[in-house]
């Protein structure tokens, strides 16, 4: 003879109540977190600039700098006339501050110019030698950047000719998706190097792109065993690495990438 403890079936009701309590707790926790955490400063929009494609909107002078400085800021120049594509001109144009406006006009490469402009602000208040010095410094910086930009553009143009491809498509305007950006570069590079021997070649790799936009680590995760395609992938990654541009503010991104010929899936 065993005694049996009577059990009451609470049904779905109890579970529902518990679930509601948990959800409420989570909601309150989030709300509390939001109150405690101060609002973060507005992170500037990330624009990926394709140095190869053309054309770009004409650069606009920084509005804030203009208002403060009666004398036009020394133009940094050559670079300003060079066509550079900006992927989110509309968004950038509506921003009121001078810094993003310059950024939107000339892209990433113009960032130091904007800095130069900001630095030049006090120049208007301190006459004499300091002003000359700052102007000369700004000119020198501008010249050096222009020279670097020209060299880079020349290199990329040379590569493009050799590669025989046309424009390198960039990520969609304002997408700000580093994965898509990496894919675009790798797609273009694989077009140049593709060669394979087996029927269904594929290579899966893990890539780590550093904050400077350089490939810092590459690891093969899986391969179909087609050494010819494997070599083509290695060459494509090497080639793409030359044109990776650092996503602004990034510290290092890891990407898993599967390479395979078009229409031939793993």
């Amino acid at each position: 003879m065993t005694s049996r403890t009577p059990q009451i079936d609470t049904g779905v009701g109890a579970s529902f109540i518990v679930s509601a309590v948990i959800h409420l707790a989570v909601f309150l926790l989030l709300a509390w977190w939001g109150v405690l955490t101060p609002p973060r400063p507005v992170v500037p929009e990330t624009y990926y600039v394709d140095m190869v494609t053309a054309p770009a909107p004409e650069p606009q002078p920084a509005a804030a700098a203009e208002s403060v400085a009666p004398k036009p800021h020394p133009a940094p120049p050559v670079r300003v006339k060079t066509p550079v594509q900006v992927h989110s001109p509309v968004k950038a144009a509506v921003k009121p501050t001078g810094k993003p406006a310059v950024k939107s006009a000339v892209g990433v490469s113009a960032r130091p110019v904007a800095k130069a402009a900001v630095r030049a602000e006090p120049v208007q208040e301190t006459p004499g030698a300091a002003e000359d010095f700052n102007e000369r410094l700004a000119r020198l910086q501008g010249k050096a950047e222009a020279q670097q930009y020209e060299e880079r553009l020349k290199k990329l143009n040379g590569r493009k000719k050799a590669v025989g491809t046309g424009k390198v498509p960039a990520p969609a305007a304002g997408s700000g998706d580093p994965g898509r950006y990496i894919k675009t570069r790798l797609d273009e590079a694989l077009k140049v190097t593709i060669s394979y021997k087996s029927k269904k070649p594929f290579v899966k790799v893990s890539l780590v792109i550093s904050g400077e936009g350089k490939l810092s680590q590459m690891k093969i995760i899986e391969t179909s065993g087609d050494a010819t395609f494997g070599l083509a992938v290695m060459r494509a990654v090497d080639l793409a690495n030359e044109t990776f541009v650092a996503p602004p503010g990034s510290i290092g991104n890891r990407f898993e990438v599967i390479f395979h010929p078009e229409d031939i899936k793993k």
Partner: protein
Amino acid sequence: MKLLCLLFFLLILPVTLSAQSGAIEVTAPGNRFLKLAVDAPRCTDALANPATAKLAVDVLVNDMNMSGLFSAEGRATPAASREQLLADFNYTPWVTAGFDMLVKGEYSLKSGGLTVEYRLYDIINRKMVTAQRYHGSTKDIRRFSHQFADEILRVITGEKGIFTTKIAYVASHTGNKEIYVMDWDGGNPLPLTKNGSINMNPDFSPDGRDVIFSSYKRGNPDMYRRSLSNSSETLISNRKGLNITGNWSPDGGSIALALSKDGDAEIYTIDREGGHPVRLTKSPALDLYPAWSPDGKRIAFVSDRLGKPQIFIMNSDGSGVKRLTTSGNYNVNPRWSPKGDKIVFSRLSGSGFNIITISPDGSGESQLTADGNNENPSWSGDGRFICFSSKRGGGDGIYVMRADGSGQMKVSQSKGKYFQPVWSRR
């Protein structure tokens, strides 16, 4: 308990969702030949020999074009970079010319010796991929170029090329049928026999050091083994009747052949000295052309036991005979591919013989030739190529093609009749 499960689920869900983010897919259309430029090697001393440099380029270009991976061409270094060193040259002209890869070289001729250094560069990524240096005499220049071609394929595909291998064949331009051996591309033809008789069915040993063949030089078609290194010749089978169509086993320990000592031709195996004969087939029909599978477990052969010559497969002890070919009325000359996935043979159809490949299970038949009369196919050691004899345009020659039938090229260089080619395995 339910509460714990729920909490666990709530905690795990976001992690699971973030882990499901897919990998980036990178694709490109088509498959392309790599564009390879072969620059004429530069002489580093005063004894420049333009003919040597040209031969080196020609051999390398031909090998690379035949590989099926490259579109190669001999190119002179652009004048602007002529004076630059091998180690440090200007990539730009090659980049702008659209090349993927470049072979550059240097050679020196001193006291009859030849030293050649080849380097392969990746033009796109501007770096050296591989380099090799060879030392020998001036007549070795073809071999050195073939060796570097093998090295290039090793680097690109992970598998060494076969451009230093040989093809043995029968030629009748002397009025007799003698055995010859040549480079895969037809260079350096050398006679192996000069007995003024009928010699036929050569086959290389797996190590490439010996050739077996059948000869009527004593009146009966007996089988001989000829060393390639010291020209010694050994009679290994002079049994009554036919001693023909010998094929060396993959381990080199035995030879399968057709013997007719019992009346009709049957498949036997003998050891490399000709002893210990083992009869494998027992049928009143003709059984000929045995061909070992690369694992040595099976043998393909030709038999007319069903009325017409067809290809059969059996275990290497003679058991488990199965018919392989079911199409065509006349299928002969089977050879098993080095990887074991295909058997190549020749089929007589209305217009003549053609080369066909088929899987060992009888599926996937594919005709590789269409022009002329094509017989006696034989695989290269890596299975990338097939050599065969062909009668096209009025002459019998030795041809080479890729395993898919593309790139058919005549390699026998002089006039005359050439047949029964066989490719060395290494």
